[in-house]
């Protein structure tokens, strides 16, 4: 125990003597979390508050195109700029001047009107309400195509949401045209309401509740756990460098001749670096609680969840430390450990679902994600932060994190023994 505490004290001294290192350990994760949250939060706001300029080529000039233009304006997402020719609009978008151009085809309104009228006539005649002759004079109406041009640099998610929006708008216009055509066929009084055009089926998002209050997730509730975990795992970089440095300084050679086990040496490092992880975590929470509201971001809600959050942070920290101990033991130079550690954390974060949710990953990556300790940590954090889970709910994830720590540390000790046994 005395040797373990002496090792921990030495690690503490080494750490506090490296002011630059401390600054990187504590300040950079805070800068990261503030930057990412600000960007993500402003992205949501961009969609809601700021209008994206788009080009519209209106070759129709009829009621349908008017409805589309009104729909685009009413969405509050777009600033509609009219362009005269399709070619000009295409060039501007493909050069990146605009994100999107919508080309409304010629005679869209009249074509739709004609098509709907023919269909309605056909139906009405089947019921014997109209002379059969009308349906016999049916002229084929060519289907119309609304063209969308996207800047090649536009993200897939933006494209999808625009396509869905336009599709929904077109469907609505078609439905209303059908109702209108029936109305005109059935009654001569345009004010008489025969059809209710309001949607029969609507949807409502049901959120989890605590004390009868909806828990509304926001960018802060998502970002703080994700990027806190990212920062915690970044500990493997300084930790592995610390071990490699001991080897290059010669102090490790001295330790190998001393009556102290490698496990004790690693134990001292674990104690101090776990403390670092927890301090990082506390700082992240403080930023979420006090800095975020001051800069216009939503406040982090940790009410009643602090003990469980610390449990997750401790086990995530241990998993990260285990990885750092293993990397430091295997690596021979800082040139090996530092870039590998940093890149590996980014890979683990990607696999863990820090950037892209796991459920939208390809099947193979989803399987890989299941073996990423960052995924276990992130799920445990989300269980506590967003799903209001209990200790029992996070038990599988924290058990995996702990097993990961034990496994990596044992591999590091065995590797060291094998390499240095006399």
């Amino acid at each position: 125990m005395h040797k373990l505490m002496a090792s921990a004290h030495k690690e503490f001294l080494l750490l506090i003597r490296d002011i630059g290192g401390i600054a990187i350990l504590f300040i950079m994760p805070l800068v990261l979390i503030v930057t990412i949250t600000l960007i993500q939060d402003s992205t949501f706001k961009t969609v809601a508050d700021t209008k994206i300029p788009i080009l519209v080529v209106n070759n129709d000039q009829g009621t349908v195109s008017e409805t589309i233009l009104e729909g685009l304006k009413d969405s509050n997402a777009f600033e509609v700029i009219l362009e005269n020719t399709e070619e000009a609009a295409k060039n501007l978008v493909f050069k990146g001047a605009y994100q999107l151009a919508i080309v409304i085809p010629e005679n869209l309104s009249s074509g739709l009107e004609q098509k709907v009228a023919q269909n309605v006539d056909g139906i009405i005649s089947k019921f014997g309400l109209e002379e059969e002759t009308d349906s016999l004079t049916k002229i084929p109406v060519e289907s119309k195509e609304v063209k969308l041009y996207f800047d090649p640099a536009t993200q897939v998610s933006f494209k999808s949401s625009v396509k869905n929006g336009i599709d929904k708008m077109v469907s609505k216009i078609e439905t209303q045209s059908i109702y209108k055509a029936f109305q005109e066929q059935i009654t001569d009084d345009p004010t008489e309401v025969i059809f209710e055009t309001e949607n029969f089926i609507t949807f409502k998002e049901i959120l989890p509740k605590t004390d009868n209050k909806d828990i509304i997730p926001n960018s802060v509730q998502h970002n703080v756990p994700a990027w806190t975990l990212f920062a915690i795992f970044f500990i493997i970089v300084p930790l592995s460098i610390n071990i490699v440095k001991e080897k290059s300084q010669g102090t490790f050679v001295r330790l190998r001749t001393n009556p102290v086990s490698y496990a004790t040496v690693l134990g001292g490092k674990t104690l101090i670096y776990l403390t670092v992880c927890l301090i990082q975590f506390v700082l992240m929470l403080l930023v979420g609680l006090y800095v975020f509201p001051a800069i216009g971001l939503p406040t982090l809600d940790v009410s009643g969840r602090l003990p469980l959050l610390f449990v997750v942070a401790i086990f995530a920290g241990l998993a990260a430390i285990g990885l750092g101990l293993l990397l430091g033991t295997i690596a021979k130079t800082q040139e090996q450990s530092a870039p590998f550690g940093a890149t590996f954390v980014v890979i683990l974060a990607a696999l863990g679902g820090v950037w892209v949710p796991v459920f939208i990953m390809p099947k193979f990556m989803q399987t890989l994600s299941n073996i990423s300790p960052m995924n276990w940590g992130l799920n445990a954090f989300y269980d506590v932060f967003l799903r209001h889970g209990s200790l029992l709910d996070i038990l599988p994830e924290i058990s995996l994190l702990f097993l990961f720590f034990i496994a990596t540390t044992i591999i590091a000790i065995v590797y060291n023994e094998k390499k240095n046994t006399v």
Partner: protein
Amino acid sequence: MIHIEHVSKKYKKADNYSLSDLSLFIDEKEIFGLLGPNGAGKTTLISILCSLIKPTSGSFSIKGLTYKEHKNQLKQLIGIVPQEYALYPSLTAFENLKYFGSMYGLKGKSLDEKIHNSLDHLGLVKFAHKKIDTFSGGMKRRVNLIASILHNPKVLFLDEPTVGVDVQSKNVIIEFLQELNKNGTTIIYTSHHLNEAETFCTRVAIIDHGKLIVKGKPKELINNNPGAHNLEDVFISLTGKALRDHA
């Protein structure tokens, strides 16, 4: 005290043996010098005796103990002063010594006193709380030495303990080692300073190409080599004048 029997060492990817069938006996309370040109196998032998590397073949024991069976006992028994400064540059001399002393189970006031006395003995007490990275080469060598003797080892291995230090530091180190020896510590050291070895060592062994060339008391070796006036003459006559550069 130290029995070395037919020890050989061949490093992976090396063409030749660094040590070849080397047998040696070092008695208690000796100051034994391992001498030889660069790449002769001196550091390899010390590293084997300190359990830092494994011999390819052969065996050895220290006070009848082997690392296989008495690892921790042996580690408590020996001290090693490595060629490089095995110290934490950002810690003070006192912090370094306190840490390495703790690794031998030493603690409290007795450890603090031992550190203080050793620093005082080697003229470093006023620098006790200065960081190692502010020390000169000679000062680092002295702290490096203290870190290895805090637990009163029975056997002290020193790999080039006076390399790159000024005359004053060298004298202090040699005097300190002689005093340790007087108090019962067996000293095995490697050096390129043959004049130093001649006066300091009770016995020396000259190793070349991993083989033991000769061993004995310095005076005897000089007398047994006609035309030799000192140990350096003996060394040159036995190992030749050719350069021993290797990579």
